[in-house]
């Protein structure tokens, strides 16, 4: 599994390790609007690998690793790492611009949704036999907000749906870019 998707496993492991590191580490890396605007730019990436609770980190890491195991072999590790890094940056910048009321954000779900859309679209094209299952999963994910009420988040913390939307949009763009580059390579 490590050979098949090293970037995915590394990203999931970082999330889990930082969840064990405790609140000071999480607070130092979380996406915080005022801190970023004061120049703490590492938070643009750091916010995607720290969480509010170990349970929160566990769920996000599982989602990220699961769909990363689908997406990474289909894109290639280097390209996948670029997509993840670029996606983290763009989601963070998107939150700065589109969610002015958001003061703090933590979680890998933006990246998990990105990976899910990327892996889903690529798997849809590559494995026609799995399309029915992918469609069902897509529908289930679209209605997942019903389940968000049961997520283990502390009081006063809400799910930042903007991050999921941005992740999905970037995953879709990445999937079409990868698909078109492969198409060009194939017909060259």
């Amino acid at each position: 599994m490590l050979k098949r998707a090293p970037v995915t496993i590394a990203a999931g492991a970082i999330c889990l390790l930082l969840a064990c590191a405790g609140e000071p580490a999480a607070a130092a890396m979380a996406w915080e609007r005022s801190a970023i605007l004061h120049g703490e730019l590492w938070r643009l990436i750091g916010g995607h690998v720290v969480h509010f609770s170990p349970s929160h980190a566990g769920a996000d890491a599982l989602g990220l690793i699961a769909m990363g195991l689908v997406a990474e072999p289909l894109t290639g590790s280097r390209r996948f790492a670029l997509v993840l890094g670029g996606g983290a940056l763009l989601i963070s910048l998107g939150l700065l611009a589109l969610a002015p009321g958001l003061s703090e954000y933590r979680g890998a779900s933006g990246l998990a949704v990105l990976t899910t859309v990327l892996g889903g679209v690529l798997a849809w094209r590559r494995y026609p036999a799995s399309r029915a299952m992918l469609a069902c999963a897509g529908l289930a994910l679209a209605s997942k907000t019903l389940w968000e009420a049961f997520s283990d988040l502390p009081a006063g913390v809400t799910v930042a749906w903007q991050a999921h939307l941005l992740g999905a949009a970037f995953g879709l763009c990445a999937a079409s870019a990868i698909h078109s580059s492969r198409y060009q390579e194939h017909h060259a």
Partner: protein
Amino acid sequence: MKRLLTLFCVIALLALGGCASAFEHGGKRQAASIVDYLYPDAKEPPKMAPTLTRLRLPVRVGIAFVPGGGYGAGPQEAAKQLLLERVRSAFTQYDTIGSIEVIPSAYLRPRGGFDNLDQVARMFNVDVIALVSYDQIRFNDTNRLAVLYWTVVGAYLIKGDQYDVQTMVDAAVFDVRSRKLLFRAPGTSQVKGSATLAGYGKEVRGAQSDGYVQAVDQMIPQLQAQLAGFKERARSDPGIQVERSDGRHGAGSIGWAAALLLAGVAWAIGRRHA
């Protein structure tokens, strides 16, 4: 008879001189220093680490008089509370200030340092504390009319004693967590007057109280101006972070149900196309 009269006059003069000398002439000082309170044993200048000051709005503020040295130093506790209430009422309209707690002097230990400040901040659940230090000097003099005190009646009717009470108060606002001085504002006053020998003590106590009231009244607008200046400074100072605590905290959470679903999908794809 003549000798007896002379002896009476001498005794009367000595007695009146004794009365007059029973009152303090020259001056008296009441002071509570913020440096003595926060840095009680400092022999070297305190080392300031470049720490980030984080303020979450609306800020919870505590306000207290710096404890003075010993009994009778400074205004009485009830007077202190009234003075601090005046400051509190002047800052209630600010939306950046959530609450202002008036902290009684009994909670602050003389020469307690930042450790004591931390304890008090936790006890009263405040982020920022405004410490009010004071320095009051009272000068006493007699004027020419004091010579009439020897008539005994003059001690009750003639204002032969003069006083001059000079007061300085200074509010220093500290962020408790970073131990950083955010801003400070002073207030001064001078109260002059004269009194009879018999009513001197009462008059001077009143003048001292008035001195504190006037100094605090002068300090309040300066404190408001400093607060406005601090707000401007905080926007450009990289060492100060200000954020609203009612801002949303967002979690990027897909939830366990969705995560398990994704794990199932990945497992199924892997199994079919391995």
